[in-house]
């Protein structure tokens, strides 16, 4: 299995093709009831949901099999998995040395947007563009608004400009089938996969 596990769930760690555009959509269902005097906003959900639409390309049958296998393990939309946003949601303030579990990020009012409760933004995917290594970590605590204590150290040194820190979303597949587009008999194929966040299932 090429997909490793984080907190007992698989991490879909494959980088999408940005040439096809990696989409990230936020939704919160609601309705505006209008009168001639005043409008009444009504929300149907008390949280925003994130949806990810990523495009992937493969050149081998074995990789495709791994994706299919993961899809089977999840029974389509049934099971949960981790998916990085693959955006630079946070940026290191400065380079860090190896084996650091405390990192400082540029101030983005982290505690305001990501409160210290189980939920969005408390799990990170830290990706080193130099070695192409990714690390999944949980934020245990926040100090001074931008100093994050991780649940375990990052084993390698990271350069601020050559690394990205993405939100690691807890998701499920948003569609009950995978549609592969093949370009030949050797297993060269592309696929677009839709994920949807499960905001209330974070540990």
């Amino acid at each position, binding site marked *: 299995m090429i997909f490793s596990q984080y907190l007992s769930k698989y991490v879909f760690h494959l980088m999408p093709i940005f040439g096809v555009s990696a989409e990230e959509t936020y939704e919160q269902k609601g309705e505006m009831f209008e009168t001639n005097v005043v409008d009444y906003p009504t929300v*149907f*959900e*008390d*949280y925003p*949901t994130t949806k990810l639409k990523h495009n992937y390309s493969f050149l081998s*049958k*074995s990789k495709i*099999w*791994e994706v*299919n296998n993961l*899809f*089977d393990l999840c*029974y*389509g*939309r*049934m099971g949960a998995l981790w998916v990085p946003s693959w955006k630079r949601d946070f940026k290191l303030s400065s380079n860090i040395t190896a084996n650091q579990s405390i990192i400082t990020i540029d101030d983005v009012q982290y505690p305001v947007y990501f409160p210290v409760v189980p939920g969005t933004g408390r799990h990170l995917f830290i990706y080193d563009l130099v070695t192409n290594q990714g690390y999944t970590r949980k934020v245990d605590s926040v100090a001074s608004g931008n100093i994050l204590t991780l649940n375990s150290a990052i084993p390698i040194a990271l350069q601020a400009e050559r690394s990205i820190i993405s939100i690691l979303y807890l998701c*499920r597949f948003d569609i*009950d*089938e*995978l*549609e*592969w*587009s*093949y*370009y*030949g*008999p*050797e*297993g060269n*194929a592309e696929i677009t996969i839709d994920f949807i966040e*499960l*905001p*209330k*299932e974070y540990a």
Partner: protein
Amino acid sequence: MSAYSNIEIEVYFPFEPNWKEAYTFNRGKYSTRILRSFTGVEQRSARRTLPLYGIRYTIDTINDMASKLRRMIRGNLHAIWGVPLWHYGMRLTQKFVPGDMSIVVDNASNSELSTFTRIMIGNSYLSQIINYDFTIGITDGITIPVLSTASRNWAIGTYCYPIMAAEIARSQKFSSDLPLQSKLEIEFNISKQFGSYKSIYSGGQVIDNPDITMNVRGLWRIDGSGVLHEITGADRIDTCWEVDVDGNIVSKY
């Protein structure tokens, strides 16, 4: 332990796709019921544990092949088809010749081959259907044991494809720009359960051209020892059989 199956491959479909056009493989049509609450808590229930497959591609044919394709489709809309998974091509790395009881390919590991019972060697014009010997299985990732030998010499580099049992949509439309030409966008719906079933009868006859393919009927079953039995008489109209893990028929419905 027993399993139910009503699968009887009646005709094989040897027409290769036009790779220049879209070839889509829908893998895993699960059915999940989801209820999402106001606060975002979800209740999810799976209604299917085995996914359905679907395959869709375009075929361009001319002359005799075009008329064969049209006849074949028209006469077998009701049938269960044996459809090669064209996107899962495996190349012979050793010759497969009469007397050989195994096929050696470049890569049969990490594949979904384990869920199939038959393999097609060749192409639209010349092909052979062979039963995979699942009792031995693929142990080294490249050698596929088979239950019947080669009908002719197959050269190194020849493609092999796993075959799945599939249904065809009941309506098929051909488009022709010329009287001699036909183009068909075909769609099959495949059940993994069809393909994964190990000990069911299958059309294991050798075919040499699409004309003969039309006459191949899956009136055969393989018992647990790998022996082929012809299904005759009233048995032919049975639609659902209960078969144990060794391939012995327990009862019919």
